[in-house]
Structure formats: structure tokens, C-alpha cells
């Protein structure tokens, strides 16, 4: 226990990141189920308006700031030194500091539920001036602000650490054009974090000044401007979307190549695409603001369309990697295919929403809820499970049960789609997001009932995963058969060392002469 709390080992910190994010994932998932329970029927009174508003606020906040984004960084913590053949990250103590800040941040945000007046209830975007008046003035909102400030600083520190590690700590022979695609995606992510997160830190600080020190940044009565909040928030908020997807693109690339038994198709193209996405994503923030009438819609529309091109490149490269391969459908590969099928829908609806006339109708409706869940849940979350199944043997020396894994995938894939397909139609029927009740008109009752049914299937799928972890760990403890160093036939360096790796990662490094050093060792 003390050993884990004081460790600076990147593998232990990475694992603690992932355990913490999965804990927050369970909490945020329970909040999601409460949302679906409330919306199961029209005019339901299972939750009060204020309770519902707190719940969807913390569901979004937790999934974004404490699950999807930090899991990617946690996995990077574990993987980056292993994949580039380094003994640890560049700044191990900074790494530990960042993790404990992050864990504290999550506790601070969730402790809002214990406050008088409840947790933050102004949405994960906390638009000013809403977050400065009435129910936005409670202690819950302050804890939300402080928690996110901590999380933003922690994220910046981790990004710095990872970028320095990848640039300076590569093993001899591991040139930049030989590092796995996952490392490139992490570099792009870290660059994005360094550009975008200071804007979040600033806007949160400004909100704190407005709330407690008599500032008027966002108060129009004193010459402040609510649009300024939206600009600063989305200048962070849209790159954040790519912080939440680029690491997962990297995971999918590794998994698809391994299970297709092929090198990555179009390696250089993938790298360029990652940086094209990162670069363009700095210039698209105001597509969240098309309906404000205060931004240059054509410019932000055009840049948003352009970002579809490098994202399309990624897709073709994954398909190209599978092309003429010999594909084995183990659980990680199933999740990777599920990722592609879901994320494609998220990407296509994203292009539609980049057209302001469509956004005028779909903005802030359930059509948007459908869109971003297809990218972040159907996309990133499926890739997250692919990563868990793929690297679990490396992290813990235990292989998860394949049969349960396939059940987990099937239930999650079916449940996810049954939950979120109806939401596109709810949006077209005029259901706004973030409403705790809706009238029984059109097909809203039916569509919501289907969505709630789907969410139950999805939740069972997630429970199968935890059952899989519990039974596999238990069975492994009884059998005491060590897992092979390379159970999947992977190509990158982490598969060259034992499962789990020794404290300094490698007893000896294989020679690195190509992008697939482990394959070279096998062949020679």
C-alpha cells in the first residue's frame, strides 16, 4: 500500500491512473443509468429537476475530465517508456505529483454531492453567466471549479513529461520514424494539451474571480461578455475532444496491426494526419457557437470540414492495415472493429454538424447527444476496452477470459447502438438536451424507452468486463502459470519484456532495426 502511494515507477502510476479512471467510469456510468431511468418515460418524476441537473453535469464532467482523457494519459504512462525502450518517464516524481493531483481533483469534484445545495448543476460547460448566478453559486460549483483547475494543471504536467520522454528517452536505434504510432499520437495529444489547457485554466480562474473577488469578466451589466466565456472555454474544449480521441486512434492502430499480422499501412500518412488533426483542431472551436450569431460561421465551418480529411486518412489506413492481412478476432480486435463502426457514425454526423444550417436545427438537441456519444463512447470508450483487453496481460501477468470478453463486446456493442441510435431521431423531433422531463408527443416516449432499454444492455456488458477481471485474476492466482511475454504476437518493444515487466522494464533490449523490433527478434 505504502509502496504504491510513494511509487515513482511509471508502470505503477499508469496502473493507478487506469484504476482511478475506471472507478470514476463506474460512478459516471451509474449517473448515466440514473439519467436513463429518469428519461425512460415522459413526464417522469423519479428525479427532481435539481437532482437531474447535478447528475448530468457530473456525468459529463467525469466522463470527459476523469475517464476518457486521463485514461489515455494513464495508458501512455504505462506504455510510452516500454514502447520506446526507456526505464521510466523523464520526470518520475513530477509524474507521481500529477497523478495524485488528478486523483484529488476527482474527489474534490465529486464531493460536491455532499455539499449543501448539491454538486455543480450547470452542465460540464458551466456557461457563464449561468454558473455565476442562482443555482450556479453553490459550494458544489466552487468544488467543480477547483477540481477542474487541479485536473488541468495535472494534465499539463503529464503532457510535458510524456513529450520530453518520447523526444529524449528513446533507446538506441529507436529513431522517431520507428516509434509506434501510439507514441506519435501521444506527442500530438501532448502538444494539443500544452496549447489548449492553459485556456481552460485561465477561464476557470476568471470564473473564480467573477464569483468571489468581484470580477465582471462575463457579466454584461458591467461591460463583461458571456461570449468571451464561450470563446475561452471552447478554445480549450474543442482541442480537448482530440485529446480524448488521438491516444485511442493510437490504440486502434496498434491493435489492428497486431491482429492483422501486418505492418501499419501508411505509417507516415498516419503521423501527418495526427498532426493535421491537432493543428486544425486549434482553429475549429467556434463551431460550438454557430447559433450564437457572434462568430464567423463560414470560416469555422470550412476548417471543421477540413478536419474530416485527416480523420478519413486514419480510417483508410486502418482498413489498409486489415487489407490482405490474416485477421484474428480476439476480444481487443473485436473492440477495435466496434470502434471503427461506431466512430464512423460519429465522424459523419460531425461533418453534417459542421454545416451551420444543419447545426441551426440540431445544435443542443439530442442529435448532438447522439453525435458526441458516437465519438467518445462508441469511439474512445470502445478503444479503451480494446486497450484493457490487449494490455491487461502485460500489466498484471493475467490473461482475461476470451469467452467472457466476447460476451462483453457483443453486449456493449448492441447496448450502445440501441441506446444512441434513437437519440438522433429524438433530436429531429425537437427534444433538447439537458432536459429532465419531456412531453409525451411525437415518438419521444417510445424512442426514450428504447434508449433506456439499450443502456441496460450496455451496463450489463460493462459488468461482464468486471466479472471477467475478477474471475481471471482469481483463476490465475490459483493456477500460478505465468503469462508469456508476448501472448498476442505483438510487434512493439513492450512485448519483448516479461509480463508484468521488471521494475526497470528490460533485462536486455533487443536490437532495434525496424518499426517491428520484436518481429525481428523472432525471425532472426
Amino acid at each position, binding site marked *: 500500500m505504502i509502496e504504491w502511494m510513494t511509487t515513482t515507477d511509471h508502470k505503477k502510476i499508469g496502473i493507478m491512473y487506469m484504476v482511478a479512471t475506471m472507478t470514476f467510469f463506474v460512478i459516471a456510468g451509474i449517473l448515466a443509468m440514473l439519467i436513463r431511468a429518469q428519461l425512460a418515460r415522459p*413526464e417522469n*418524476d423519479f428525479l427532481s*429537476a*435539481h437532482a437531474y441537473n447535478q447528475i448530468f453535469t457530473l456525468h459529463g464532467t467525469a466522463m470527459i475530465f476523469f475517464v476518457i482523457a486521463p485514461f489515455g494519459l494513464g495508458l501512455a504512462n504505462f506504455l510510452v517508456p516500454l514502447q520506446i525502450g526507456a526505464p521510466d518517464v523523464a520526470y518520475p516524481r513530477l509524474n507521481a505529483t500529477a497523478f495524485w493531483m488528478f486523483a484529488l481533483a476527482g474527489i474534490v469534484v465529486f464531493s460536491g454531492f455532499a455539499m449543501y445545495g448539491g454538486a455543480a*448543476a*450547470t*452542465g460540464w460547460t458551466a456557461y457563464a*453567466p*449561468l454558473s455565476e*448566478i442562482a443555482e*450556479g453559486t453553490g459550494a458544489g460549483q466552487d468544488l467543480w471549479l477547483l477540481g477542474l483547475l487541479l485536473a488541468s494543471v495535472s494534465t499539463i504536467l503529464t503532457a510535458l513529461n510524456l513529450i520530453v520522454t518520447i523526444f529524449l528517452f528513446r533507446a538506441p536505434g529507436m529513431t522517431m520514424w520507428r516509434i509506434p504510432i501510439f507514441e506519435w499520437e501521444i506527442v500530438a495529444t501532448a502538444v494539443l494539451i500544452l496549447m489548449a489547457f492553459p485556456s481552460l485554466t485561465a477561464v476557470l480562474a476568471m470564473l473564480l474571480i467573477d464569483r468571489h473577488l468581484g470580477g465582471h469578466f462575463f457579466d*454584461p*451589466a458591467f461591460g463583461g461578455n*458571456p461570449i468571451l466565456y464561450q470563446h475561452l472555454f471552447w478554445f480549450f474544449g474543442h482541442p480537448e475532444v482530440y485529446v480524448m480521441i488521438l491516444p485511442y486512434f493510437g490504440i486502434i492502430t496498434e491493435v489492428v496491426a497486431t491482429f*492483422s499480422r*501486418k*505492418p*501499419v*499501412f*501508411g*505509417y*507516415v500518412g498516419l503521423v501527418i494526419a495526427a498532426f493535421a488533426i491537432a493543428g486544425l483542431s486549434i482553429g475549429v472551436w467556434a463551431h460550438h457557437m454557430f*447559433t*450564437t*450569431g*457572434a462568430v464567423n*460561421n*463560414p470560416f469555422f*465551418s470550412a476548417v471543421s*470540414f477540413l478536419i474530416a*480529411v485527416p480523420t*478519413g486518412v486514419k480510417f483508410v489506413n486502418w482498413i489498409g492495415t486489415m*487489407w*490482405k*492481412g*490474416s*485477421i*484474428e*478476432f480476439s476480444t481487443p480486435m473485436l473492440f477495435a472493429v466496434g470502434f471503427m*463502426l461506431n466512430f*464512423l*457514425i460519429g465522424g*459523419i454526423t460531425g*461533418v*453534417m454538424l459542421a*454545416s451551420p*444550417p*444543419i447545426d*441551426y*436545427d440540431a*445544435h443542443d*438537441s439530442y442529435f448532438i447527444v447522439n453525435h458526441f456519444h458516437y465519438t467518445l463512447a462508441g469511439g474512445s470508450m470502445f478503444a479503451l476496452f480494446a486497450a484493457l483487453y490487449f494490455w491487461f496481460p502485460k500489466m498484471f501477468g493475467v490473461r482475461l477470459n476470451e469467452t467472457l470478453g466476447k460476451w462483453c463486446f457483443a453486449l456493449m456493442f448492441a447496448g450502445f447502438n440501441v441506446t444512441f441510435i434513437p437519440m438522433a431521431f429524438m433530436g429531429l423531433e*425537437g427534444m*433538447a438536451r*439537458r432536459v*429532465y*422531463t*419531456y*412531453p409525451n*408527443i411525437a415518438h419521444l416516449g417510445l424512442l426514450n424507452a428504447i434508449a433506456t432499454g439499450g443502456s441496460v444492455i450496455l451496463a450489463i456488458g460493462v459488468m461482464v468486463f468486471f466479472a471477467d477481471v475478477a474471475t481471471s485474476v482469481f483463476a490465475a492466482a490459483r493456477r500460478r502459470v505465468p503469462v508469456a511475454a508476448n501472448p498476442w504476437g505483438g510487434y512493439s518493444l513492450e512485448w519483448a519484456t516479461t509480463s508484468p515487466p521488471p521494475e526497470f522494464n528490460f533485462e536486455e533490449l533487443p536490437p532495434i532495426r525496424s518499426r517491428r523490433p520484436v518481429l525481428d527478434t523472432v525471425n532472426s
Partner: protein
Amino acid sequence: MLPDATIFYAPYGYRFETMRWLLDPASVQGVTMRGDWYVFLIAAACVGLFVYGCIFWCIFAYRRSRNPQPAQFSGNKPLEVLYVVIPLLIVIGLFIVTMIAEIPVDRVAADPANKVGVIAFRWSWRFDYPGGITTIGTPFAPPTLYLPLREATEIDLTSADVTHSFWVPAFLFKRDAIPGMQNLFAITPTRVGTFRGRCAQFCGLDHALMTFQVKVVPDPAYERFIASRGVEVP
């Protein structure tokens, strides 16, 4: 604490038109935007089916039992150029379609036939017609916005407290109501009827109940409504 939503919605709930909005929008601007929707839906379906086809073909044709020996190649230069150029052409086309739809929708006439001021507040709406007619709603008695048929009405939108959004799904349109800022846009309804409207931007506790209805009436009825200073309700 919960308002009785049943009483609130029941009197007019089922009279609203439903599900036809995208196919049959109720305003001139809505019809323009429907064109944009259709182009994008068709493009989305084509691209989606093509990529799905590629994925399913790969996972069927190259599964291990059918193709035990993987080919070892790591790229295809002409193909890589092609799949940058083709999507680029597609999005350029889509951008042109977008602009063709957006410019008329965002256009506001210099001298509008009819002007209505809309002020959003937590959690209802205030409508100010010419001649000093004012309607103020509550969450439990949502106000009605009367609009003349086939005439461009300019809406002058703002907010009294936090950011709201004026959304009428039947017009396929919304615009944010932002405190300290005025947003102008035009609506030209094309058919008589009652349509649902609501706040789309989360605005706190009773955001869900911040609704209104739009009643499009023939021009003479609207004229009488204005001339009688709101007494003769259409």
C-alpha cells in the same frame, strides 16, 4: 416540488405536428435548410455505406481461417494520395452547398414587414409586438408567439439573465439569446398551424419547462390582432 407536467402539456400536447419537420418544414428558411440537410444525408449515407462495405469486406475476406498467410506491405502511394484528394473534393463541395443554404437563411431585410422582440428569461419568454402588445409567459403557462403567414417577421432576440436559445423545430432553426447582445433573424412561415418552441441552451433549474408555442395565422387575423392591441386573439 415537481410541477405537474401532465396538466401543463395536456391541453395542447397532441395537436402539434410531429416528425414531419425535416421533410416538410414550416418556413421559407426551413425549406432552404432542408435542402442542405438532404445533400448531407445523402453524402453521409454514400460515404458511410462505402466505408462500412470496405470494413466488412476486409473482416470477411481476410479473416485468419480464410487467409492464413498475411501479405507484408506497408503502404500504397497512389492510393494514399487518392484518399486525401477525394475527401478534400467532397468537403469542398459540401462547403459550397453549406454556403448556398446559409446565406439566405442568415439574411435580414433592411426594412422588415413585421418585427417582434423576444426576450428570454429564466424560464419563459416575453414577446413584444408592434403597437406595444406584450405577452409574458411562465413555465406553467407558456406564451404564444403569433406570426403572420407568408410574411417575413424579423425577430429581435435577447436575454434578460443567462444564455438561452430560441428553437422552433418546425422551422429547423434556433438562435441563442445572449444577455447584453441582440440577435436578429427572419422567419417567413409557409403554413398555418401551431408549432412547438423551446429553449435549447441549458439555463438552469427549469430549463426543461421553458417552452412556448408559435401560432402561424393568416395575415388579416394577424392585422386584427395588432390593430386591436392584442384583444382579438387569432
